[in-house]
């Protein structure tokens, strides 16, 4: 296949546009105290409803989502559609606890979830456990964003045959991303998210109307898909997939949806997006309008069936299903619009990659560097360290993609989801009650991590007996159904935490000091702060100043 110059030109054009935006963002709503980590790492905690909405959407619905969810449906059918109930129930779920998280973070100046764990339980070890889990889970996630860009570049046939030429565009994209994240912090992805989401909405709307027309309607698409899913896969000797989950697969479907929804806001980058909101109402209002993205994701996932119907990858041995969607676009759209679609995916990778690296950097700086290594670090030093770490994190992710097997980052990301879910009791439990004992939480976390990792190790990839980390579902003990390992591990985690808390309370083991009070969890901008000695930055918002750092 030849390089599609028109598509490439459009792609590069959009890429240049967001690069300019990324650097200009540094000047956008600049605060007086640019040295504070709140500025670089949380955009000055100043984002209103519209910016927050784009930021969170740009953050949570990543390029990898656009490629992987339809790719899963392309591969196995109905089981991949769990992403839809997942994003539906995520919003009512987080509606309950995110406003509380925002309030306590604002009131106490917390930048990360681990900050909250430390403050609530007076325990550095719980904080470090949360921080390490967050960093570990985020790294492969960033790597997957680069995998997303790579899928687009592969489809565009950029760089020719040599392996260096093939990697070069990715290196350039990466360098640009690293540079503007370094200089602009969270403001860069916030501004670029506008471009990203606009492009994505346009592409999705066009795709779900235009492609079915070309393929002969939805009825035809689903008919083709049903036929393809019923065919026997020679590698496994079973049908390729199914159009509705059978009785055997329903537990897995439901637990995957539930577990993923619970894990969503345990990820550092999601928490960063929330904490950057300017007031409590902004958070809640956003959660009420976020489902618009779920609709987009639902429609998008149907593209997987369209790719089946269009015959993308048909008859190709060992076909990489991650290429299904980019190739569908290339096959169906005129060149220039394929370029727009590729730009949507490419930019869709840059926004979350930037936010994730910022979130991981915040975690390292606040909960490892400052808490463990250099307790007297000034805010300016924190910002400096965070900026450097954001570069290191991205380099690590790049290393993953270029050096190690791509499949490995996908497996690690599945594992990351199981891991991050194990911080749920400490964070969400802590937002409502101060009942758990810190040591019990730590033990529960360790039990959940160990169990989850061990179980995932035992899952072989389809058609490859004896392989490891091939999926995230396994037999649930006692119930005897196949379910998401993350949820099983979480149940174990909770059981350990509850039992040990009772034991430790009976033994009168020393509790950590809780620096938060009930009012912190409902505090809002405009409430009388506890001790207001700091003026808000120039855009004149009322602040509950970052009281403690």
């Amino acid at each position, binding site marked *: 296949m030849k390089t599609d110059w028109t598509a490439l030109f459009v792609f590069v054009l959009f890429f240049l546009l967001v690069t300019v935006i990324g650097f200009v963002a540094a000047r956008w709503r600049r605060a007086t105290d640019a040295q504070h980590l709140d500025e670089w790492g949380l955009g000055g905690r100043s984002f209103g409803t519209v910016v927050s909405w784009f930021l969170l959407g740009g953050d949570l619905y990543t390029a990898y989502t656009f490629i992987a969810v339809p790719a899963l449906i392309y591969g196995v059918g*109905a089981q991949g*559609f769990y992403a*839809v*109930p997942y*994003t*539906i*129930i995520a*919003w*009512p*779920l987080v*509606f*309950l606890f995110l406003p509380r998280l925002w309030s306590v973070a604002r009131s106490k100046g917390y930048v990360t979830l681990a900050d909250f764990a430390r403050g609530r339980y007076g325990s550095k070890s719980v904080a470090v456990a949360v921080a390490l889990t967050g960093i570990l889970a985020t790294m492969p996630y960033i790597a997957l964003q680069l995998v997303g860009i790579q899928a687009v570049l592969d489809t565009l046939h950029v760089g020719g045959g040599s392996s260096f030429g093939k990697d070069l565009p990715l290196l350039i994209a990466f360098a640009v991303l690293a540079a503007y994240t370094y200089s602009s912090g969270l403001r860069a992805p916030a501004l670029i998210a506008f471009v990203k989401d606009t492009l994505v909405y346009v592409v999705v709307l066009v795709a779900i109307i235009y492609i079915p027309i070309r393929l002969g*309607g*939805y*009825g*035809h*698409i*689903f*008919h083709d898909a049903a036929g393809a899913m019923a065919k026997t896969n020679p590698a496994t000797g079973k049908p390729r997939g199914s*159009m*509705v*989950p*059978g*009785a055997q697969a*329903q537990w897995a*479907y*439901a637990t995957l*949806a*539930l577990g993923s929804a619970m894990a969503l806001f345990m990820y550092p980058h999601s928490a960063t997006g929330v904490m950057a909101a300017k007031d409590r*109402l902004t958070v*809640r*209002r956003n*959660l*009420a*309008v976020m*489902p*618009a993205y*779920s*609709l987009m994701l*639902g*429609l998008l996932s*149907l593209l997987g069936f369209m790719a089946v119907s269009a015959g993308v990858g048909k008859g190709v041995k060992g076909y990489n299903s991650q290429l299904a969607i980019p190739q569908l676009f290339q096959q169906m759209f005129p060149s220039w619009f394929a370029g727009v679609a590729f730009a949507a995916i490419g930019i869709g990778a840059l926004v979350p990659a930037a936010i994730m690296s910022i979130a991981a950097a915040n975690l390292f700086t606040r909960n490892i560097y400052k808490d463990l290594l250099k307790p007297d670090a000034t805010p300016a030093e924190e910002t400096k360290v965070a900026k450097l770490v954001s570069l290191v994190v991205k380099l690590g992710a790049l290393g993953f993609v270029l050096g190690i097997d791509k499949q490995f980052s996908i497996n690690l990301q599945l594992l990351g989801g199981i891991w991050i879910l194990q911080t749920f009791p400490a964070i969400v439990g802590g937002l409502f009650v101060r009942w758990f004992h810190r040591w019990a939480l730590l033990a529960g976390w360790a039990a959940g991590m160990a169990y989850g990792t061990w179980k995932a190790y035992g899952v072989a990839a389809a058609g490859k007996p004896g392989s490891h980390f091939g999926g995230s579902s396994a037999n649930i003990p006692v119930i005897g159904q196949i379910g998401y390992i993350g949820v099983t591990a979480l149940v174990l985690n909770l059981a350990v935490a509850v039992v040990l808390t009772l034991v430790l309370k009976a033994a009168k083991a020393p509790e950590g000091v809780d620096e938060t*009070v009930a*009012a*912190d969890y409902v505090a809002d901008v*405009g*409430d*009388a*702060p*506890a001790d*207001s000695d700091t003026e808000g930055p120039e855009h004149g918002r*009322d602040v509950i100043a970052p009281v403690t750092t």
Partner: protein
Amino acid sequence: MSEPSAPRLPLVTPVRVVCAVLLAAPFVALLWVDSYATDKPALAGIPFFYWYQLLWVVLSALMTGLAYVLFTREEKQRKAQRPARGGEQA
């Protein structure tokens, strides 16, 4: 933080119960997979399994939105009733 000295406002109110039901409904509907794991009736060629869940995207959005309106309105009223910390708009 100054602690309000007045009696605490009730934690469970009718409005909050309605909000809880609105927020809980999508969980029940979608985690009960067996209730919708079927092909028929199809809508415009889309099997029931798919259009039903897409319909829930919209339903759940409306329900979460309604819960937001109800909850926010009630919280404003509660804030007005809460002594000591009111009236200090910075």
